């Protein structure tokens, strides 16, 4: 009895010491790290919901990343090592995102994680990546205003989608905008920027309205739109709501000729789910459409359909998921197989370029976001987009868009060694 208790206390003391220093790698982490090191594969975590509410779109990101890994491995892998994908299903719930992220980092020792779709899920895992100093590549367009040392954002930020889009709509369709979005941060942030752009370019907001997330009944909203008589309905609805909204819009007899819907988020995937006839004539602004004419895109679309089915469509978010996988492979190659997170974050990934389906893309050297192309598409009868406008060049990402925050940006090249904060600069 006496013995046991003493042992227990001793163990407890040791563990406590470990716990106290856990922010730096604790004893647990060290013990676990020792177990795996000399594998012949490069482990990469894939963290996208395969079930639950967000899976309707997030599964396609998972698919695209697996496709890219398959292609890379078919060409001999990275420096002769195959990439091994470790797939987790966080079930569209933030608590599982965090749990699975921890599992991938701490137990599986992945080199980096490709994952997340919603901002909620990204924000839930970021503290994990920051604490354990691991790498996350995040492929979704999002509301920006964020800079994490441990995260690389390969999707569009608002300035890459809206800056040209809103003035173009004002000029070609009309100045009166009716804003409708799902009730959370992304639509609210996007609409703030849209309103700023409207103010700048002589447009006008006739109404701004939000629907509960997952809401699929829009008859009331449509009646309101009809009464308000705007020129453009600017929608940042997400998920199911997109599909229900477009369908009911058409059913209530409003066509794109009367009042077109313009959106930075409706992709080919949603159009497939609503039926092309419900989307005809509506506008989307994106970096990538399936109809983009590049040899890389032809290959990408063909490979995707070959792997997942002829009736599949590609979309902008999964395209980012696809090329960010290449970014990671190239970065490891550049570092000659060194997978130390600091090396990846400071040398491997920044400045990395890739000839993506949308055109040549590049991770910005300073702010961890990605240089992308801007396009405006109009949905046609085949469920594809006729591309009306393509930007002359790739566009630099502004995590803090100049319209709203003229003086803010973030810069990770100025980080003092060993420090991970103080990266956000405010020019005065």
């Amino acid at each position, binding site marked *: 009895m006496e013995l046991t208790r003493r042992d227990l206390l001793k163990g407890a003391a040791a563990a406590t010491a470990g716990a106290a220093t856990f922010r730096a790698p604790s004893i647990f*982490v060290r013990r676990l790290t020792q177990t795996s090191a000399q594998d012949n594969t490069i482990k990469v975590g894939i963290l996208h919901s395969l079930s639950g509410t967000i899976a309707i779109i997030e599964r396609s990101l998972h698919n695209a990343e697996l496709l890219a890994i398959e292609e890379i491995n078919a060409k001999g892998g990275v420096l002769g090592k195959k990439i091994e994908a470790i797939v987790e299903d966080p079930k569209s719930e933030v*608590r599982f995102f965090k749990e699975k992220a921890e599992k991938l980092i701490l*137990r599986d020792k992945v080199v980096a994680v490709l994952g997340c779709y919603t901002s909620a899920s990204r924000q839930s895992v970021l503290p994990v990546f920051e604490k354990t100093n691991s790498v996350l590549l995040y492929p979704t367009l999002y509301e920006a205003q964020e800079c994490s040392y441990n995260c690389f954002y390969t999707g569009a930020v608002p300035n890459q989608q809206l800056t040209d889009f809103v003035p173009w709509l004002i000029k070609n369709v009309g100045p009166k905008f009716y804003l409708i979005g799902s009730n959370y*941060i992304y639509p609210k942030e996007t609409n703030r920027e849209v309103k700023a752009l409207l103010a700048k370019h002589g447009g006008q907001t006739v109404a701004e309205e939000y629907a509960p997330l997952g809401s699929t009944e829009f008859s009331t909203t449509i009646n309101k739109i009809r009464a308000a008589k705007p020129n453009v309905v600017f929608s940042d609805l997400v998920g199911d709501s997109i599909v229900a909204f477009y369908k009911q819009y058409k059913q209530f007899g409003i066509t794109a000729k009367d009042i077109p819907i313009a959106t930075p988020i409706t992709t080919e995937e949603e159009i497939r789910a609503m039926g092309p006839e419900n989307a005809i004539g509506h506008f989307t602004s994106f970096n990538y459409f399936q109809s983009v004419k590049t040899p890389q895109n032809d290959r990408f679309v063909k490979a995707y359909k070959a792997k997942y089915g002829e009736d599949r469509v590609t979309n902008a978010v999964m395209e980012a998921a696809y090329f960010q996988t290449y970014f990671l492979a190239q970065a490891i190659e550049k570092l000659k197989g060194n997978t130390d997170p600091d090396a990846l974050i400071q040398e491997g990934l920044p400045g990395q370029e890739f000839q993506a389906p949308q055109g040549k893309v590049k991770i910005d050297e300073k702010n961890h976001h990605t240089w992308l192309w801007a396009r405006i598409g109009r949905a046609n009868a085949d469920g594809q987009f006729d591309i009306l406008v393509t930007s002359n060049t790739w566009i630099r990402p502004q995590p803090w868009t100049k319209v709203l925050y003229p003086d803010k940006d973030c810069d990770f090249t100025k980080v003092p060694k060993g420090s991970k904060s103080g990266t956000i600069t405010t020019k005065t």
Partner: protein
Amino acid sequence: MIGLTGLSRSQLIIALAVIAGFFVFPLYAGAFRTDQLGLFLCYVMFALSLDLIWGFTGILSLGNAIYFGGGAYFIGLALKLQYAATHATRYGEGAIPDFMTWNGLTEIPRWMRPLRNVWFAAPAGVLAMGFLAFVFGVITFKRHIYGVYCAVITLAESLIFEELIIEKQAYTGGFNGITDYDSYSGSLHFYWVILAVTVFFFWLSRKLTTTHFGMVLRSIRENELRSEFFGFEVANYKIFVFTVAAMMSAVAGGLYAALNGIVSHQDIGPILSIEGVIWVAVGGRGTLIGSMVGAILVKGAQSLLSEQFAWIWDLLVGFMFILIIVLMPDGIMGALLRRARRRRAIAAGRMPAYEAARIEETPTT
């Protein structure tokens, strides 16, 4: 010691062994599994509180996550306010939480300032949830709302709160929830705190359910009307136990938030409540032990299965769940305890007035 717990000698030894097992688990398991077990213990406390109101009293509440989530939001907000005050976040602004900046707030609202002190926020959260449960309890039970009506009312309440949390995003973080604050993830001390609170709650629940009070609760579950005509003001008993359970849930939620580092609307919505009911049903309701076993078993199975069979794990969980419901109506522990009790009863010939662990069949709600 034996007198204090009301356990028999062998039960006490088992209990201490289990506690000791949980105590030393982190020394061998690694940070990830330790954190996970810490979270499971928070779920265990939540399940205990559900067992009190459902297993013992027969109130099926599909809204108990309100109190769990509510407690979590108090702590989450407090830690976030603290963190924001001292850290420049990756969103640029310091001093106030990022979601406030996004929503155009330039300073912390006056009414929220006391929450900056977590030692205020913690008891405040628990008391607030207790008060809320008291109010909801009064409006529900004084009106003799029971059974499925109670379930749907609590479900509606839960949906209202989830929607409110999402809607009032300037103060709650909205859909994204509250993330990015200093959590106690990886802290062994904190794990032990959670373990201690869990043991305390178990002790408390046993105290509540093995006294005459507990027997009255069971009589209410068995036949509410009969108890009323025996002079028990049933509504008061229900309100009391509902409030106590809500406060336990709030504590569990607070610990959960402090450990997990995220609070989201999903912690307040009906899905968590329904999950909790499932844990209790699987473990065996009205047994306390069963609810704890159920929570760990289901969460553990979910976690392990989803690691092994990412694609079909919920199918497995569904089938397992149905099998247990059909084949073991008393839940896993219920079935075990019933058998043990039969043996003891036969051996003793006579039973004490109050059984150590009760086994139930059909609550009449």
